[in-house]
């Protein structure tokens, strides 16, 4: 049994990279081990920590905005002076009546909103869900010693790091960070903060340059992921024996590879517009502040929208597919039965990946593309809900008849299903042109996609962290603290996003700086929800404290893992020492069976690792991977 073969080194659990003398013929220095590392696990952890920091930072930006929405024009209590000192007078001002510092300005509100979206999507979720978990888990799950191109992998992280620095710096340039929404629609984005003396040092241009680095990082990463999955699968790891998480990462990598470059092209073009005065996105006869703007014109703002959404719709699936993959792993392991309909799920994820490239213009119904174009995208959008429903249904049915262990990871994974379900189902009305014209840019949209990404993907990320943390550190996360994290998070995250549907249907627009106070007589029945949502957001932030404490405390003082496979899982990553050293496996890996052989009738325990050879004397029947016959519970 491979799982008990290599428990000799648990004492060094907190020192990854120093414990497996069998591989390291030459000792790498501290810098090469922890900072400029080419090891996929270190890079994964680097991505994960950077991503978590930005995820929390993006959330804090939103907390300030939620304060402003609930109490328009009131200084942020306690820390208002500090915020004003940090972010400067463009983002915060002094209350003219009381003289108290820390009132969010409208420019600051726009800037925080734009950066909240950008940071959450490109600097939080993608780095964690795709890059961190993909880097750490995928090579382990396919039995590879590392990524195919370790140095390109390092270049990917450092390109991402540069983009993080640029985005952070952009808060402190004159005028503050980008403030034209995370979508950066021109011509608004084309003229924002444009002073000819500093064509580079302004929020929007830095946003563009930061995005170009971010995209480059994603491209380097995705080439690496695809090549790794194709080339470095261990002997016997055939395509249909890949864990579903690997499939999810594989399709996600293709989405990033093919959808991101058009945004890179668009980013270059908008940078040209801003720095060199071209008119890619600047229409003829543009009037700015009452004067004819100094552009030759002839450009098309709609072109930006097409190029942006050609990325950003596949990007939605980039956000959710790794999450679904993680949830699938956690569910299969903790229900102790195979995934229901593994092959159908693989097929569905392929179809989803393909269709995600031809639905982008459903974000653009308001641009007046014409009924035929809208009709096309309306149709494809409805079609794409079919594979999504297949995935969620299969995961839901996987629970059926299982003997479920509600580990912290499983709590988050099971919660993911209804939360993502709400997000998905509320999206269906938006697919229809006629409905969308009314709901476009309202809080309904905000509620919809946050249900997909926040209690959806972020809960999946938490599931993944609770699930793989023992493998990465050699220690378990504390379960009591995990419950203190999970239950309040679940309650308060719904407290934030559910009222958004009510507000949106009543017509509350997503970009109102005063929370709708100006339009009080129209939205009076729903405006009181602002306070409720803001209080929920504050408590949601408090609910993260047990997690943050748990995350760092357990690294040094958590319970040590009992063996290399604490969850009794089947997939190959649990065959490594804990934590895995450089080169991952101490012996060559051969895969003999599918990924989810849980509760196989006749087997001597309720899980059979993929690396366990078939027994010569006893016939082990593989479970029906289509899941037509539910496996009996043990």
């Amino acid at each position, binding site marked *: 049994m491979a799982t008990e073969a290599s428990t000799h080194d648990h004492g060094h659990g907190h020192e990854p990279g120093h414990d497996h003398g069998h591989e390291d013929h030459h000792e790498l220095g501290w810098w090469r081990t922890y900072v400029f590392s080419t090891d996929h696990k270190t890079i994964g952890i680097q991505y994960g920590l950077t991503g978590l920091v930005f995820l929390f930072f993006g959330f804090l930006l939103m907390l300030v905005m939620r304060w402003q929405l609930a109490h328009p024009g009131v200084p942020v209590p306690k820390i208002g002076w500090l915020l004003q000192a940090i972010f400067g007078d463009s983002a915060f001002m002094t209350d003219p009546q009381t003289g108290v510092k820390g009132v969010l300005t409208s420019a600051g509100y726009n800037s925080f909103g734009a950066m909240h979206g950008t940071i959450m999507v490109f600097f939080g979720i993608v780095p964690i869900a795709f890059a961190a978990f993909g880097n750490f888990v995928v090579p382990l799950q396919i039995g590879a010693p590392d990524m195919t191109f370790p140095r*390109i992998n390092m270049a990917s992280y450092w390109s991402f790091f540069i983009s993080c620095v640029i985005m952070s710096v952009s808060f402190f340039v004159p005028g503050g960070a980008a403030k034209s929404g995370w979508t950066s629609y021109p011509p608004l984005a084309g003229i924002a903060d444009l002073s000819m003396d500093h064509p580079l040092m302004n929020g929007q241009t830095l946003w563009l340059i930061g995005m170009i680095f971010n995209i480059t990082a994603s491209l380097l990463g995705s080439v690496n992921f695809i*090549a790794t999955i194709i*080339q470095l699968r261990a002997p016997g790891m055939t395509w249909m024996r890949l864990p579903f998480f690997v499939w999810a990462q594989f399709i996600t990598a293709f989405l990033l590879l093919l959808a991101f*470059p058009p945004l890179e092209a*668009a980013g270059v073009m908008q940078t040209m517009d801003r720095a060199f005065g*071209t008119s*890619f996105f600047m229409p003829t006869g543009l009037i700015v502040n009452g004067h004819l703007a100094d552009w030759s014109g002839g450009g098309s703002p709609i*072109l930006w929208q097409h*190029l942006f959404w050609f990325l950003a719709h596949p990007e939605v699936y980039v956000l959710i597919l790794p999450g679904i993959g993680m949830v699938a792993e956690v569910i299969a392991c903790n229900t102790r039965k195979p995934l229901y309909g593994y092959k159908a799920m693989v097929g569905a994820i392929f179809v989803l990946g393909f269709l995600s490239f031809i639905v982008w213009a459903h974000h653009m119904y308001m641009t007046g593309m014409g009924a035929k174009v809208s009709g096309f995208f309306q149709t494809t959008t409805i079609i794409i809900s079919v594979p999504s429903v297949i995935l969620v249904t299969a995961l839901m049915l996987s629970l059926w008849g299982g003997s479920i262990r509600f580990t912290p990871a499983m709590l988050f994974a099971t919660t993911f299903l209804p939360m993502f379900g709400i997000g998905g189902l509320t999206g269906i009305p938006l697919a229809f042109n006629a409905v969308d014209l009314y709901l476009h840019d309202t809080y309904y949209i905000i509620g919809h996609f946050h249900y997909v990404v926040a209690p959806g993907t972020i809960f999946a990320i938490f599931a993944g962290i609770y699930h793989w943390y023992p493998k990465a550190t050699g220690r378990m996360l504390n379960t009591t603290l995990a419950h203190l994290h999970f239950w309040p998070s679940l309650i308060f995250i719904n407290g934030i996003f559910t009222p958004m549907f009510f507000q949106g249907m009543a017509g509350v627009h997503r970009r109102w700086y005063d929370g709708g106070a100006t339009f009080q007589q129209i939205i009076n029945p729903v405006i009181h929800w602002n306070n409720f949502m803001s209080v929920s957001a504050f408590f949601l932030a408090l609910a993260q404290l047990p997690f943050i404490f748990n995350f760092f405390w357990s690294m040094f003082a958590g319970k040590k893992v009992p063996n290399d496979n604490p969850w009794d899982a089947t997939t190959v990553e649990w065959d490594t020492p804990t934590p895995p050293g450089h080169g991952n496996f101490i012996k060559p890996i051969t895969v003999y069976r599918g990924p989810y052989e849980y509760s196989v009738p006749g087997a001597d325990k309720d899980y059979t690792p993929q690396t366990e050879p078939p027994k010569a004397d006893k016939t082990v029947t593989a479970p029906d991977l289509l899941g037509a016959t539910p496996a009996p519970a043990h």
Partner: protein
Amino acid sequence: MQIPYEVSARPDTGLYNAKLGIWLFLASEVMLFGGLFSAYVFLRVGADDGYWPHGLLNVPIGFMNTLILIASSVTVVLAWASLKMRQWSKYKLYMGATIVCGVIFLVVKLSIEWPQKFVHFGAFIKKDRWEQYEVYLGNKHLAEKGLAPRPEITGHLEAIEVSASADAVKTFASDHELEVKPAEAKESGESALVVEAKHAEDGVSPRTAEKLLRLPGVKPVAFEVKLDEINADPDNPENDRPHFIPRSLSEKVAKIKYDDISSWSSFAPKHSSYFAVYFTITGLHGLHVLAGVIVFCYFFFFGEKLYRKNPEHMANRVEVGGLFWHFVDLVWIFVFPIFYLL
């Protein structure tokens, strides 16, 4: 730790890692240039009649560059084949030829093609003033023939007429080798000056003109432009269609009032959608050529050590670099017709 399939192919995929990697990278490059080419299509289809220029690029030079790139694609394959046959000296020869071709391409681009654009001047005339410049635009003639109108006057900037005090422009003029004269006919009460080059044949560069007009107290009145052949003789049927070789300047000088101009500049990226796309795509393509040349130089000068150790690995590297080089070539095969010919 050794990563498998770095040199030899994985049996079931038939590929070594880097070959798969470069194909994936090229897939993303296709999407990158695809985004830019789709912008080209979008902007060209959306351009008003006559606002998409033709015949402004030098076709013979572009054609020569095309041949040079194609030749370099052949030599890089020969370099790879030489390595496969373990003929190091032949490899050096062919790889050297490839690098020389790439360098020639870049030199032609950076020393001939691009700089010419930045000294040429173009001014779009406001639509309601076309009548006044009919003698340069020839739009009646074009309309009779059912051709798109000509909204722009192009040529070399000879002089700028400004309304300013002599003191305001004095230092600027001496810094930029310009000469300031009083204008002959004053139309308004303000003092009008003519700013021109010290050596008349140089002309005023449009960039200097922009700087001049940004000085405090300087207001533009008119441009004096030495016309391109096409604006000097617009009704000539020979000028209906663009020429593959841009014809030389005429001797005719036109005076264009600043108020009649909707926008003006050199043939820089900001001049029009056409030059915006032209510079963005050829610039990005040029960066790719540069990257290829740098990588090939590395293979050329520092490849021998790896070749002696593992010749197959070296051959693989050249193959991967060659695939990239072919892609760069292929992009140019699209760039040449859509910008130079169509």
